[in-house]
């Protein structure tokens, strides 16, 4: 990041949330880089940026789309890069119909289910290929693996990211049709151009509230700082992900960055700024329902009934890249878990894996708890009663459990909800009515245990145990190991087949003299080892050593190499002063200690650096290999001019100029033929709750967002709907430097608490005047779900925006506080205002934006509080149905055109 010439920070308050990471922005700035901060509020990041651009929360796709349109229509994109390294030249299936022609939905949309059949989005397949017998009916249409006997919507289920791993959108072939002149009307380039043609600076002005001259300032900065000599970097955080089309926000930025040639190059890319010590690690080795370690998907019922089906769905052997080796990764994982019980004959116990049948994310689980379907709940270092959207629903769910295990340092609100929760205070419930058994276990902290954290740039760093934990304090490692031991002990005589996975589990980790599990032994298992062969028992040095025949075991293939040579490389601590900027001898980054992914793209198609200034990894003709400052993220000895056999698959199919080695076609995806369930191209929809109507389409919100119509999850009317004026303001939630998410690690610390002692809301002077709010006094904020109180900060850092000619006021709400009695400071939780609506790709809730009203004074107490909320609901006329329609009504001709894209597929694919 320090190498960037221009840094766009959008959807992130980097200086506040990542002050130490911000030093790299500072350093880039010192070198002359331009820093632009795009955010609803003027934050501490804005204070240091060259320019702050206020934007209406949730309108980012309009801005980014307009930037895409700007660089396309003014020929400002990096043509050599785009042609060589992206799928711009690739032709798309002729059945594809864009949102521009269907008034806000793509082809394949089923209004009944709110889901897409994505088959029409596929690449056109070239003629005269080797023929794989799979689809290929002449028009280049690519079919799903596993036959065409399903409904489109089910296919959509299947292609949803929760059913395949991260980058693992599979493709049947690498044989695509390309038009390198980029002129073909069905080329991705032309589709992109048409799609974003209406995203103009004027549209940005109207929808984002960004004046035209400021748009040009941003556009100019990006254009001038991209290309051979220069790179622009984007940084985002939860301001983008926490939306009902959050994944598409990131996609839009990725498209722009690919067009400008800023991916895989030093000072380029899109930086995700993540909020937790090991949030990257917890997706790599996921405590997530849809993934197995290393981004292998959890098997889906009906699709992954056998190992073969599973592997085929991850990657066709004929596609390019390293995902084709998924069989080796999977077999090694299963061997690591079930050891000798896992054999080639029994598909390495693939059947031991439970099957998914849909999304089982945390919000689905929450609702299942309310429906009494879940008995027991483990909460590990999180505080959902405060930190999750719709706090009231969260606490209600907790009270429906039979038992709850909370493991934390302090008595967080989730552990005391039954005693100190707001619903107890309001009389809606009482401890005597809550049946939940609560176990609070004191957890060990980072100095009381050893282990690795994976930081945001995929680097594993070992932290050493400094002291032993006191009293009953225990690490998760010890607790879950012990729990596993006792569970297995109870089942040891079981003959029930369902207990086999537990009994066959490899669970014999060495312990030290205090009975603590040796974390290094676990990391070694994660790294993997040779099971048989002459190196049996030795650790794997690299993931390409993994085999599908059961001769290797390894818990997470992307982490293979962390123990290369038997040395725990996450412990590497060669001081930064003694290394170059890349600092490869500090910690260990996956994969294979690469610090910049896809860094092949930092060289031109011939393997020469794009420029001397942006030299990073290049082809050394003499040594016949890729060299540079980093570990090349590319087959080390692949000549840039290498062209694979058209029938080849896997790593062998990667051409010498295919830098995006984990993508099925080796190219950066401007257009996503697979992988995004809500459209191959990002398009602007309004947030679930928005005071304005979507000017681009009749379709107001993301038509495939996940909606839960429940009476405890009401929505305010949006846009021009009657009643929307009852909740006239936009609120957005965020974090402060001084606190940490739901406060479990900050509100109990006096030094942090005194820096931000109370919940507050930030309002503009204009709104303050309009509503009689006074700086330092109290205000009550009411949404369709709840009402909270906060102290008022009146500040010019929040500005009213003019959207479609109307003034839109935004209210800023930090979300660190919660209601309880144990913390040093407490206050109402902003998340109580939120409802649950999810991004369909990643199941992340929309918590950055919602509609509300604000009034001076404190909120009512006791039963007056629910009464106030109900009074608003009734005034707005909101019901369970409000805001829950997937598709908005459209004229008949549009409806028919939309239907045509769906039925044509059904007729072709056949219906069961």
């Amino acid at each position, binding site marked *: 990041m320090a190498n960037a010439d221009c840094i766009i920070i959008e959807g992130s308050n980097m200086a506040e949330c990542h002050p130490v990471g911000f030093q790299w922005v500072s350093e880039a700035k010192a070198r002359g880089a331009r820093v632009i901060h795009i955010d609803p509020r003027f934050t501490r990041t804005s204070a240091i940026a060259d320019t702050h651009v206020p934007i209406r929360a949730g309108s980012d796709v309009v801005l980014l789309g307009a930037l895409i349109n700007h660089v396309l229509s003014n020929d400002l994109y990096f043509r050599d890069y785009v042609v060589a390294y992206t799928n711009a030249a690739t032709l798309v299936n002729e059945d594809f119909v864009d949102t521009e022609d269907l008034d806000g939905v793509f082809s394949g949309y089923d209004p009944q289910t709110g889901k897409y059949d994505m088959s029409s989005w596929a690449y056109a397949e070239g003629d005269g290929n080797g023929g794989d017998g799979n689809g290929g009916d002449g028009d280049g249409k690519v079919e799903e693996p596993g036959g065409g006997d399903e409904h489109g919507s089910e296919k959509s289920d299947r292609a949803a990211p929760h059913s395949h791993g991260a980058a693992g959108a599979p493709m049947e072939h690498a044989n695509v049709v390309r038009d390198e002149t980029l002129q073909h009307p069905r080329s991705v380039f032309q589709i992109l151009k048409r799609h974003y043609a209406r995203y103009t600076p004027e549209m940005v002005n109207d929808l984002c509230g960004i004046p035209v001259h400021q748009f040009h300032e941003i556009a100019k900065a990006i254009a001038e700082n991209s290309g051979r000599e220069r790179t622009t970097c984007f940084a985002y955080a939860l301001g983008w992900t926490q939306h009902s089309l959050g994944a598409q926000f990131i996609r839009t930025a990725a498209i722009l960055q690919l067009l400008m040639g800023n991916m895989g190059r030093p000072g380029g890319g899109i930086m995700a700024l993540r909020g937790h010590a090991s949030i990257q690690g917890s997706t790599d080795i996921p405590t997530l329902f849809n993934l197995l370690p290393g981004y292998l998907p959890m098997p889906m019922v009906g699709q992954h009934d056998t190992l073969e089906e599973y592997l085929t769905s991850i990657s066709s052997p004929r596609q390019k890249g390293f995902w084709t080796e998924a069989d080796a990764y999977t077999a090694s994982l299963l061997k690591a878990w079930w050891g000798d019980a896992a054999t080639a004959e029994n598909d390495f116990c693939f059947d031991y894996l439970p099957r998914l049948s849909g999304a089982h994310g945390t919000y689905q689980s929450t609702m299942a708890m309310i429906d009494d379907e879940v008995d027991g709940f483990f909460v590990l270092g999180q505080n959902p009663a405060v930190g999750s959207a719709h706090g009231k629903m969260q606490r209600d769910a907790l009270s429906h459990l039979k038992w709850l295990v909370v493991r934390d340092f302090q008595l967080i609100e989730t552990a005391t909800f039954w005693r100190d929760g707001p619903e107890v205070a309001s009389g809606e419930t009482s401890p005597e009515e809550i049946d939940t058994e609560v176990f609070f276990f004191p957890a060990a902290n980072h100095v009381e245990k050893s282990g690795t954290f994976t930081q945001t740039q995929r680097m594993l760093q070992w932290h050493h145990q400094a002291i032993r934990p006191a009293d009953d304090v225990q690490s998760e490692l010890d607790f879950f190991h012990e729990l596993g031991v*006792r569970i297995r002990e109870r089942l040891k005589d079981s003959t029930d087949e369902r207990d086999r996975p537990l009994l066959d589990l490899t669970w014999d980790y060495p312990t030290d003299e205090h009975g603590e599990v040796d974390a290094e032994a676990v990391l070694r298992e994660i790294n993997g080892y040779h099971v048989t062969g002459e190196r049996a028992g030795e650790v794997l040095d690299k993931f390409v050593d993994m085999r599908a025949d059961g001769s290797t075991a390894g818990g997470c293939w992307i982490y293979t190499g962390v123990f290369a040579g038997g040395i725990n490389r996450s412990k590497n601590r060669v001081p930064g002063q003694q290394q170059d900027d890349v600092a490869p001898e500090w910690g260990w980054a996956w994969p294979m200690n690469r610090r910049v992914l896809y860094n092949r793209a930092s060289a031109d198609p011939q393997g020469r650096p794009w420029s001397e200034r942006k030299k990073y990894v290049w082809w050394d003709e003499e040594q016949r290999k890729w060299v540079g400052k980093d570990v090349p993220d590319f087959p080390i000895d692949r000549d840039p001019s290498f062209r694979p056999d058209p029938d080849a698959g896997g790593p062998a199919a990667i051409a010498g100029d295919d830098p995006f080695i984990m993508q099925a076609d080796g190219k950066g995806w401007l257009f996503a033929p697979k992988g995004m369930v809500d459209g191959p191209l990002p398009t602007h929809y309004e947030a679930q709750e928005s005071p304005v109507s979507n000017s681009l389409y009749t379709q107001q919100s993301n038509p495939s967002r996940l909606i839960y119509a429940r009476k405890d999850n009401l929505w305010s009317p949006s846009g021009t709907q009657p009643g929307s004026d009852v909740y006239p303001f936009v609120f957005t939630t965020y974090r402060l430097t001084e606190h940490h998410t739901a406060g479990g690690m900050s509100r109990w610390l006096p030094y942090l608490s005194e820096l931000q002692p109370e919940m507050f809301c930030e309002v503009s002077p204009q709104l303050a005047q309009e509503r009689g709010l006074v700086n330092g006094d109290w205000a009550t904020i009411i949404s369709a779900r709840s009402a909270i109180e906060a102290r008022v900060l009146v500040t010019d850092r929040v500005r009213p925006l003019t959207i479609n000619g109307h003034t839109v006021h935004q209210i800023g709400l930090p979300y660190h506080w919660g209601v309880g009695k144990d913390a040093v400071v407490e206050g109402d939780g902003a998340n109580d205002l939120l409802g649950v609506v999810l991004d369909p790709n990643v199941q992340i809730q929309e918590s950055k934006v919602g509609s509300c009203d604000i009034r001076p004074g404190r909120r009512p107490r006791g039963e007056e509080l629910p009464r106030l909320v109900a009074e608003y609901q009734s005034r707005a006329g909101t019901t369970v149905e409000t805001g829950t329609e997937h598709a908005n009504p459209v004229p008949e001709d549009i409806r028919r055109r939309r239907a045509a894209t769906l039925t044509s597929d059904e007729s072709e694919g056949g219906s069961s």
Partner: protein
Amino acid sequence: MASKDTTFLGWPVLRQLASGDFLGRGTSVTSRRTRHVEARTTTADRVVQSVCPYCAVGCGQRVFVKDEKVVQIEGDPDSPVSRGRLCPKGAASEQLVNSPSRQTHVLYRAPRAKEFQRIELDQAIDMVADRFLEARQHGWQEFDDKGRRLRRTMGIASLGGATLDNEENYLIKKLFTAAGAIQIENQARI
């Protein structure tokens, strides 16, 4: 020296006259404690390299331990990630570790009880293990409505992991998956 401090000769007024510090603003007025001041970073028994537990930047930390107590946590200047710097949260790590309000005992709240009670760790784990198996059994789904094998339980859910070590997440995922529990989630989705 010690004797001088406690005798008449240690009287700063005399030291004022004897030294160049006639106005009594420097050398002549120092106390014994001042002259022998120590930094606890220097007197620590050992220094352990660690990583900041808050956000995902992964700043390096140095943990200073004296008499098996953490006495100081500060930035690790060797770290190329953070170059010795820490944000306010990272700088408060010592308080996180040594917080007086930190819980060190297992607490149990029975159904409908109004307060927590202390129970033994061993007993608590046993209780959780029993309940785990019971809930697993209660929520077990062998097949879906189409008769396809699910082999899972919906009786147990888990939330957390983004603040945990990779090794811990690995064991959690491994144990839960083997038990058939699929509702495992963490902050990455919040």
